[in-house]
């Protein structure tokens, strides 16, 4: 404590206003003159009593945020009331003991001690020991300091300390508080009566400090709970696509909250042999874990401990057992100080691990953190599992959609063969006609030219048809491209033209001449149209009525493109109308009942709607709408 002394006032000169009761809220005037010792001591005792009374009356009511300033003010009052030079309220803990100053006040001539944490045991080993053992240190003049405190004596002498009183207060949890008073201007006699009252005062201070501390802890808990609640809310409702981002954010916020440097989410493989990094966040300057990196070889002891469902927790690397050799070496290399790894179980077995690392300061990982951090791991794991389930479902739908499409093409094979045959037949006849024209004595070149032109056109037509088929039969690959629904309708009609003839259906198109583009997956939308047209044919096949007509209309209004398919089928009842779009509902003899369900999910994924209405006379009209300009809908 680098305290300097410029002015020395002898003890005998100190005094007060003769035991008058001064209000404790105001600094007591220094009374350093003409007071005889006993009356002075009595006066000091009275002043301390006053302070104790005032403090005990107010300390419970003092708002937590004012505790700090209230203690500082009281400390000043004590110093002034007792005509000392400085007073300090501090906390020291651990081995070696570290001192943390809570509050200090001194006369202007005395320099303040450093407020940061300082190691007490290096410079003051005896002093620290005494206080930690709960022994008061009290000397009125330097020569009263015992011989064993030679180091302290030297230090105190160099600081100019003339007397010192330090009362320790041990509270639960091994933390020791200390109230100390010191003089620099002269030796000071600490009477027993005064010591008793100061102890009382010190206890009051400690109570107030403890109250502040418990409030801080409470506040810290509250913040932690708030953080968890926020992360929990985000994880519960975040769309599947944003789960990864939400987890990264959560890991970052926890790191920032705990004041550590890294947090990581890991996952065990299904057979629990491997442990993978799923997400990792680290503050700048600290290496995060690499995503998808398997750690079981680098960290075998951690892996096996976690697999058993046990927590890994250390403040210092050397707390790890000998078996954790790899972990110690790696820890040393990366410079980790403290680490906490919590296994997170899902239906019994630990499937996930949430880990925290401190690189700059040692962290105790209090026991009360663990259930909360485990909960955090569970939140992340749940969100990830939800995301995976959604992805699996989407994949399943894609495969289902693909399957349904391929099955539809299978049903269409005969018609498509016919449709392909037409251009092929024309090409063959044209080519052979051309050969014959060429073989004439005078080759008929104009005819040959015309035949060739037609051959090229038919070849293109066949090519386009094959391309359509290949596309429809190819595996699902979602793409968003600008599409004209008129073109799409025409392409699909080309595919079902023969099928319509086969079903004796008169297929009419009523397309609006100009249609704005919609963004969507060409393949999927073609599949929907194909499905709806084949359904209409099927519905009309079952009718005995001679009239079999399908009218396909396109329209555009309210920022949406509509395609309506009006058939003259046997129609459906209200129940069927409600249920026809649900999976596995079918009125067909053969058929899975997936076509319309798949179609509806496709249209919904495009931000559109698919529904059916009964016609006034006969059959139903199936409508689909697609919004305009939704380039980014998922």
């Amino acid at each position: 404590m680098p305290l300097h002394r410029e002015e020395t006032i002898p003890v005998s000169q100190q005094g007060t206003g003769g035991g008058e009761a001064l209000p404790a809220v105001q600094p007591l005037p220094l009374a350093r003159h003409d007071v005889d010792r006993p009356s002075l001591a009595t006066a000091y005792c009275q002043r301390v009593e006053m302070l104790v009374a005032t403090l005990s009356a107010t300390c419970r009511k003092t708002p937590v945020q004012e505790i700090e300033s209230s203690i500082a003010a009281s400390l000043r009052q004590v110093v002034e009331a007792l005509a000392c030079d400085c007073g300090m309220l501090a906390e020291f803990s651990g081995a070696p003991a570290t001192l943390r100053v809570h509050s200090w006040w001194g006369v202007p001539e005395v320099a303040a001690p450093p407020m940061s944490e300082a190691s007490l045991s290096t410079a003051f080993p005896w002093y620290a020991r005494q206080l930690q053992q709960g022994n008061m240190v009290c000397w009125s003049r330097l020569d009263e300091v015992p011989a064993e405190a030679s180091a302290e004596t030297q230090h105190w002498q160099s600081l100019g300390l003339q007397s010192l009183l330090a009362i320790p207060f041990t509270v639960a949890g091994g933390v020791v508080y200390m109230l100390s008073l010191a003089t620099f201007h002269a030796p000071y006699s600490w009477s027993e009566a005064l010591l008793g009252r100061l102890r009382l005062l010190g206890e009051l201070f400690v109570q107030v400090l403890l109250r502040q501390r418990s409030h801080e802890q409470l506040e810290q808990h509250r913040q932690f709970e708030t953080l968890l609640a926020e992360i929990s809310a985000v994880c519960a409702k975040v769309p599947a696509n944003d789960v990864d981002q939400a987890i990264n954010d959560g890991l970052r916020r926890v790191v920032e909250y705990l004041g550590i440097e890294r947090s990581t989410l890991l996952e065990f493989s299904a057979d629990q042999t491997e442990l993978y990094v799923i997400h990792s966040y680290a503050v700048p300057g600290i290496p995060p874990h690499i995503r998808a990196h398997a750690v079981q070889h680098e960290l075998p002891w951690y892996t096996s401990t976690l697999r058993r469902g046990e927590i890994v927790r250390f403040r210092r690397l050397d707390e790890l057992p000998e078996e954790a050799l790899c972990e110690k070496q790696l820890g040393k290399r990366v410079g980790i100080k403290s680490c906490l790894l919590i296994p997170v179980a899902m239906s019994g077995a630990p499937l996930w691990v949430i880990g925290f690392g401190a690189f700059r300061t040692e962290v105790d990982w209090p026991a009360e953190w663990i259930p909360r951090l485990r909960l955090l791991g569970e939140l992340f794991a749940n969100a990830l599992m939800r995301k995976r389930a959604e992805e699996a479902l989407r994949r399943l739908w894609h495969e289902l959609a693909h399957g349904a499409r391929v099955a539809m093409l299978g049903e269409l094979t005969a018609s498509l063969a016919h449709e392909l045959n037409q251009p092929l037949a024309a090409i063959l006849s044209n080519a052979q006609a051309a050969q014959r024209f060429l073989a004439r004595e005078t080759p008929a070149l104009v005819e040959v030219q015309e035949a060739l032109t037609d051959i090229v056109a038919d070849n293109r037509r066949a090519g386009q048809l094959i391309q359509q088929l290949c596309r429809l039969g190819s595996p699902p690959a979602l793409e968003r491209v600008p599409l004209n629904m008129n073109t799409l309708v025409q392409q699909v009609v080309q595919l079902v033209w023969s099928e319509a003839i086969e079903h004796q259906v008169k297929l009419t198109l009523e397309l609006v001449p100009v249609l704005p583009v919609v963004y969507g997956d060409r393949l999927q939308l073609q599949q929907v149209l194909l499905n709806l047209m084949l359904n209409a044919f099927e519905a009309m096949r079952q009718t005995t009525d001679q009239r079999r007509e399908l009218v396909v209309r396109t329209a555009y209004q309210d920022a949406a493109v509509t395609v309506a398919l009006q058939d003259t089928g046997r129609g459906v009842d209200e129940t069927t109308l409600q249920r026809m779009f649900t999976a596995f509902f079918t009125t067909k003899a053969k058929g899975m009942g997936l076509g319309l369900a798949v179609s509806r999910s496709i249209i919904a994924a495009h931000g559109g709607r698919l529904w059916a209405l009964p016609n006034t006379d006969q059959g139903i009209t199936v409508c689909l709408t697609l919004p305009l300009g939704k380039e980014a809908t998922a």
Partner: protein
Amino acid sequence: MNQAEVQVLVVDDDVSFRRAVERLLASVGLSAATFASAQEFLQYELPAGPACLLLDVRMPEISGLELQELLTTTSHHMPIIFLTGYGTIPMSVRAMKAGAVDFLQKPCDDQVLLEAVYHALERAQQAWHTHTEQCTLHDRLETLTPREREVLALVVTGMLNKQIADALGMSEKTVKVHRARLMQKMQAASLAELVRMTDKVDH
């Protein structure tokens, strides 16, 4: 075969196939009339000369097979060659039973198609010849008086004039006059020819 007189009628809903077939037929000097649908064909005044029909099975509204049925009921016996993108046995059996001369699968080789067309046209021509001959004979028969027809009916059975006279209650001389007149009207040079003529008409 006089090709200028014959005609091939093509009914197919596919415009490029119609053009191609028309071109192929033209390359061998055959003239064709093409129709996009059965309805269009039915509105057309059928040619007087021998003709055959190239007919697509699968067409919107009225299919090839339905058109064949319609033609049968309207007693228009035109040889039909069916064309189909994918032929099925029941379909071709049904067509052949109803009198189709051929059932071809698209795409088909020019040799096959043209042979079928020639074959059909030959049949058409034969039928046309028979038909025209019958018409001529029928016209000549129309010129006969009732008495002459009676005489004709008995002459062709090989009865002698005397027997005919007895049977019809007229003199043998009158029979001779009728006989000479009807031979002249029917433009028959001999009794044998007259018999053949009446066979054709009855047929």
